[in-house]
């Protein structure tokens, strides 16, 4: 069965993509991609967000089926119609968000959906537990199969999921950001397991933003940029800087907006908010941060690095286990988002749906956060409309009609409404998560202009993003988060995108 000749002689590669292209609504996401995975190989796949990694993997895993080009598994042409097809052909995927059932035992998770049955039609528990134990043991792990999944640390849950994929007979295993939630010893244990698996003649695709991890574990590395494959090279001849320059492209440094920035962190500016040693026991580990009046602090990090939680902790939405937050020198203890708002902290989450009321008119969406300033007891809708009219004009919200239902506005305009909520009475601190994600160029520039003008009016602003361009365009100083902890801080001087990627 198993093929012990990696890349060898006559045997066809485990997986081969030739000239694969894919577009979404006329916009090309992948252009003529070639990709080869040999048996017994760990193949690292890197690229920025939107470079085409995920699209490629979704084609391989049978999620997308309307693509051009050819795919072969062990030399045989295939065209999967569904994820089930791909699984049947021996392709298994472990996602960044694990699909385990925390309430069930380890063994039940391994055999999810395919439980062996006794001749009486009942579940064959002794066999399930014994088989699971053997399977997990073969990975060099010692886990009691009757342990409840949820009680295991994330690193072990991931390995149990991996063993489920192996158990299903997968020979091609795709790992999406497998190390993003793991501590250093957990990463080492995962790598031991991966080396073991690859020794059995399976092929592994290792997708990750963490370049050190990719360089360490991979035999080969393929870099994607803008939907194209840039290079495939043996990992042993690549350095981290090589990979980064392939990812962002040579010669483009400093030429486009957001490729680089000159930071102007000014320590003489007054500190508005100080957060020290913030830990929530899960996503944030001892994060400290200072926000200054009239300055934009950028926080950059990969998805899952803790920036989502950081923003919520500062807005009173996430309870901290440890840490102090002081605002204008006074300690803050949030009991609710209302308390944060009352203290002068404003937040626009990454997903605008989270803070907008689709079925309500624009003016009610804007006034909700300032009702207590407009009215004592009775509502004054005329005053609310007036304020909304002012904001729709200032922010160039189209159409400028305060009575329009929010749901009928375009995405960019909705985002502006989300921002407008906090503009009537300037907050002391404004927290923006992914302020320009998914916006067209025009709307993006509007938002950048608004945010900068707020800074110039003395607001202390925190911008969190997984896009280096966003942070570089806006920030006066930048903090890089990595796995829930501060990895590096940039305060002054010229900084390039490559510096951020290298630090994260």
């Amino acid at each position, binding site marked *: 069965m198993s093929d012990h000749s990696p890349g060898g002689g006559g045997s066809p590669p485990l997986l081969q993509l030739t000239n694969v292209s894919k577009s979404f609504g006329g916009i090309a996401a992948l252009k003529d991609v070639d990709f080869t995975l040999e048996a017994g190989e760990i193949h690292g796949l890197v690229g920025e967000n939107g470079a085409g990694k995920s699209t490629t993997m979704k084609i391989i895993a049978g999620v997308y089926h309307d693509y051009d080009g050819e795919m072969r598994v062990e030399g045989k042409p295939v065209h999967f119609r569904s994820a089930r097809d791909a699984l049947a052909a021996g392709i298994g995927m472990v996602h960044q968000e694990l699909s385990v059932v925390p309430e069930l035992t380890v063994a039940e998770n391994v055999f999810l959906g395919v439980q062996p049955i006794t001749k009486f039609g009942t579940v064959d528990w002794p066999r399930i537990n014994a088989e699971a134990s053997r399977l997990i043991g073969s990975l060099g792990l010692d886990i009691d199969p009757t342990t409840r999944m949820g009680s295991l640390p994330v690193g072990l849950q991931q390995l149990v999921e991996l063993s489920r994929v192996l158990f299903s007979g997968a020979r091609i295993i795709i790992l999406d950001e497998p190390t993003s939630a793991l501590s250093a010893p957990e990463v080492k244990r995962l790598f031991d397991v991966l080396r073991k698996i690859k020794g059995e003649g399976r092929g592994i695709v290792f997708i990750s933003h963490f370049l050190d991890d990719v360089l360490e574990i991979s035999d080969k590395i393929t870099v994607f940029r803008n939907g194209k494959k840039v290079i495939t090279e043996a990992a042993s001849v690549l350095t981290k800087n090589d990979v980064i320059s392939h990812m962002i492209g040579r010669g483009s440094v400093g030429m486009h907006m957001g490729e680089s920035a000159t930071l102007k962190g000014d320590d003489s500016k007054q500190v508005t908010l100080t957060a020290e040693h913030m830990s929530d026991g899960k996503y944030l580990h001892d994060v400290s941060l200072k926000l200054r009046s009239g300055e934009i602090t950028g926080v950059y990090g990969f998805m899952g690095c803790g920036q989502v939680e950081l923003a919520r902790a500062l807005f009173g939405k996430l309870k901290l286990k440890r840490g102090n937050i002081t605002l204008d020198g006074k300690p803050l203890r949030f009991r*609710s988002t209302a308390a944060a708002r009352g203290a002068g902290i404003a937040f626009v989450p990454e997903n605008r749906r*989270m*803070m907008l*009321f689709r*079925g309500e008119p624009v003016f009610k969406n804007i006034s*909700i956060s300032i009702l207590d300033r407009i009215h004592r007891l*009775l509502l004054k809708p005329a005053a609310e409309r007036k304020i909304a009219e002012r904001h729709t004009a200032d922010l160039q919200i189209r159409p400028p009609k305060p009575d329009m239902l929010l749901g009928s506005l375009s995405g960019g305009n909705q985002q502006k409404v989300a921002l407008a909520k906090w503009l009537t009475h300037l907050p002391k601190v404004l927290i923006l998560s992914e302020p320009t994600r998914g916006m067209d160029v025009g709307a993006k520039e509007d938002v950048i202009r608004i945010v900068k003008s707020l800074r110039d009016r003395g607001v202390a602003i925190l911008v969190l993003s997984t896009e280096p361009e966003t942070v570089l365009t806006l920030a006066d100083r930048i903090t890089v988060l990595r796995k829930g902890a501060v990895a590096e801080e940039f305060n002054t001087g010229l900084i390039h995108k490559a510096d951020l990627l290298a630090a994260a």
Partner: protein
Amino acid sequence: MEATADKNQSRLRHLLTEQLRNIAPVFTLLALIIFFTVASPSFFSVVNFMNILSQISITAIIAVGLTYVILTSEIDLSVAAVANAIGITVAFFTVQPDYVNIANVPMPGVIAIVLTLLSALAFGLITAFGITWIGIPSFIMTLAIMQIANGVSALLVRGQIAYTYPDLVTVLGSGSVFGIRWTIIVAILFLLVGHLVLSHTRFGRYIYMTGGNREAAEYSGVNVKRIIASVMIISAMCSGIAGMLAVAYFGSAQQNQFDTYLLDAIAAVVVGGTSLFGGRGGIGNTIIGLLVLGVLNNGLDHVQIDSFLKILIRGLILLSALIINVYAQRLKDSE
């Protein structure tokens, strides 16, 4: 030309979608009135109309609080049980005739009323605490409170029946002024104040926004927990006051005399068109819902229908209201 026609059509469609939950109950009400007027000569009269108002007045007071709760997309199943317990409590604090064998604690009338209102507040506070602080879903929490309130009722009267109440309660519950029953006047007052608070105060706006999109309300800096706690307390207070007046209205305070009030109050709110998913509707809808139920219950008596069939018909009306309610929501979401 064609474009404007299209636009007009889509505007009309939009209006219908928006107003379906308001239009349907009004048509139901009109249809019922016409039907009973034709079917029974005794139905359509001023006297009978006042009868109907009197019959729905107690439910109306309960429904005001319940409207607030349902607008935040929570539910309160304890309303009838709390009304029962509070009705019994006010009798418990009043001197009873010799033949009533209850270990009661008589108080002067005003103190009895204040203590009784505090008991209602206590029910509300416990419910609010359980839902917002501990995090028990309102459906389960109020189910538990329902049982507890029933237990309080049972312990206070121990199978006995009480007949006397503080004078104020007796007057408001069973008296009339200018030929109009006080319960009707109190109910109208509750509905009016309930409406004004919902539509003209900040608190009312927060209720709608919390029901419309709880997460968004929270991210907008609304204290969602405080809003939900408040509506649960308001609901308990409305139920308590309704219960106090009702024992005087009935002329007796005993266990299990509010059995039909839970379903009636929920039905009034939902039949009126207030969304079960929160954020849409209001006291205006509840008034229509109350009249639909009132006309239906009263009218069925006038047409001499099998009283067992009556129960079934009420169920069917409630079911069709639920279908319209969910359908209206789906139309809205699909826009």
